[in-house]
């Protein structure tokens, strides 16, 4: 057993020295390998971050949102609708909400105007999201005017800018009082946008939804878990798409690795011939080459992953933001929360190390079966 360890150590020593002797060649391979890991890891870390962010945001949202449908389209909640629902077992709280979208031609972006349920905003005042504040250069106390859809100009005072914490969802948010909201949008009195319900027991949610659908046939309950699922599969799908697009890169890398491994230099061939002649077995050469592959893979993996980490969590994923995020015109400036995920690491490993190993196996074997007597004939 100790023999085995000593032997592996010798083989690793030898392959380290061999790598050092062919620096330029191996650095090229290492660079390509690390780049591949970097790109794949960036995609994965970035979508993982987005997923996490969306999850966090959704965690605060109500379990059920009830919309009313007219001719298959969402319509306003008429007065008296809330009372029609009555009491449903398991529902802790019911609330009618007022919110809508507003297109701002100045910065060509959509805002979400919303009346918050838990706080009162005095008439004539606004609370704005951080992205909007940045775009329009606002700080608390400033005045801002919006032209409503009916053509009238409204001027508000900015009471507060929302904190940066969870920007993905609140970036484009504008909070205002209920009267201001109704006046701005000409929203009919007594009507609401939708209804939210809080359900404490997650196992009850489906029952509640079924009861709602039965009581109000023209309503559509939207469950938080469904939204979560949709988001998750949306992100997965995007990630998968990008990875498929990158499959070309993966293939190119595998070909490069194959080529590098089969295009052994004359010098390297001679070395393997010498090793075999002086008593190395084909298996020993294979093992030595295996360690070489492990060293290259590990370094590339480490370099690529760390670079991706810096890219995603410290440089805000500058290279992939437009592709992977794209859901609002105002790109939120949020910081993703750094997180290492075992499944992700394992997947990344499968995507990089496995193709590399598969690609170099045959060329390495070819080199390893060099005739031991070849050195006698040079």
């Amino acid at each position, binding site marked *: 057993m100790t023999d085995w360890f*000593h032997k592996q150590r010798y083989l690793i020593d030898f392959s380290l020295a061999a790598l050092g002797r062919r620096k330029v060649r191996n650095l090229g391979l290492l660079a390509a390998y690390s780049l591949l890991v970097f790109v794949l890891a960036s995609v994965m870390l970035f979508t993982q971050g987005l997923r996490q962010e969306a999850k966090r945001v959704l965690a605060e949202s109500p379990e059920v949102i009830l919309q009313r449908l007219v001719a298959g389209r969402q319509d306003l909640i008429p007065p008296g609708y809330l009372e029609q629902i009555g009491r449903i077992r398991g529902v802790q709280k019911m609330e009618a909400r007022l919110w809508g979208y507003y297109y701002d031609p100045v910065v060509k972006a959509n805002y979400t105007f919303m009346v918050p349920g838990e706080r009162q905003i005095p008439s004539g005042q606004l609370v704005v999201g951080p992205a909007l504040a940045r775009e329009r250069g606002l700080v608390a106390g400033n005045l801002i005017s919006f032209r409503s859809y009916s053509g009238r100009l409204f001027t508000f005072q900015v009471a507060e800018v929302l904190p940066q914490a969870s920007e993905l969802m609140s970036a484009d948010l504008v909070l205002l009082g209920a009267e201001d909201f109704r006046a701005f949008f000409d929203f009919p009195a007594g009507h609401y946008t939708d209804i939210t319900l809080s359900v404490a027991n997650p196992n009850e949610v489906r029952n509640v939804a079924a009861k709602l659908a039965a009581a109000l046939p023209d309503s559509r309950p939207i469950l938080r878990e469904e939204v979560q699922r949709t988001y998750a599969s949306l992100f997965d799908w995007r990630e998968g798409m990008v990875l498929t697009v990158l499959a070309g890169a993966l293939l190119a890398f595998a070909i490069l690795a194959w080529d590098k491994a089969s295009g052994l230099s004359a*010098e390297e061939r001679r070395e393997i011939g*010498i090793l075999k002649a002086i*008593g*190395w*077995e084909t298996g020993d050469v294979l093992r030595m080459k295996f360690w070489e592959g492990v060293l290259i893979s590990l370094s590339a993996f480490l370099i690529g992953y760390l670079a991706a980490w810096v890219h995603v969590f410290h440089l805000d994923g500058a290279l992939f933001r437009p592709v992977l995020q794209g859901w609002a015109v105002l790109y939120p400036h949020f910081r993703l929360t750094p997180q290492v995920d075992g499944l992700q690491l394992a997947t990344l490993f499968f995507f990089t190390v496995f193709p590399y190993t598969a690609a170099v196996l045959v060329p390495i074997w070819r080199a390893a079966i060099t005739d*031991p*007597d070849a050195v*006698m004939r040079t």
Partner: protein
Amino acid sequence: MIEIADLHKAFNQGQHNEYWAIQGVSLSLARGQVTAFMGPSGSGKTTLLSLIGCLARPTSGRIRLDGEDISGLPERFLTELRRRHFGFVFQQFNLIKGLSARDNVMLPAYPLGLPHRQLTERADALLAQFRLGHRADARVEWLSGGEQQRVAIARALINDPPILVADEPTANLDTALSREFLAILGELSGAGRTVLLTSHDPLVLDSPQVERRVALRDGRVVEA
């Protein structure tokens, strides 16, 4: 004791360029002797040495090493035998560039997995024996031709093999270095090692250290 019976070796067998480099060699080589193979270029000396040294497998015929038949063995076991029984000195020295003299000497022992200390000590002792102790850490490409050959001899001896095989060992050496090499041969043979070498060099073939001469022509023994 090495016994060879009716040995044949073909290259590219079954193809249009089939070539029989060894055609029925039978020989018996005693332990502890220095034997030189001679003959014109292409007569099969190198091929015969590589067959005896377990570097290649004969197409037919038998080779017995101390009574054990080694001719039909798979490469895996030939390698094992080679490591245990043979040390090689090649014409081009065939050292690995970029490694130190000590590392080169230690290479044949890597697959055995000896403790590092023990192996280094043995390599250093061998280097010292060949007056290379002070050059142990030098890269081999910085060494002179004679020094390189001595490193190669030390490497051949690291696993303490009973038989030393040398193909044209003096082809790259001047007269003085060739004499030095012969002196080393004499010492090794005196210490009980069997030496098999090929040579064109009259200096070697006529030297008193060589105890037996075998002449080959067209893959056959013409004079033993």
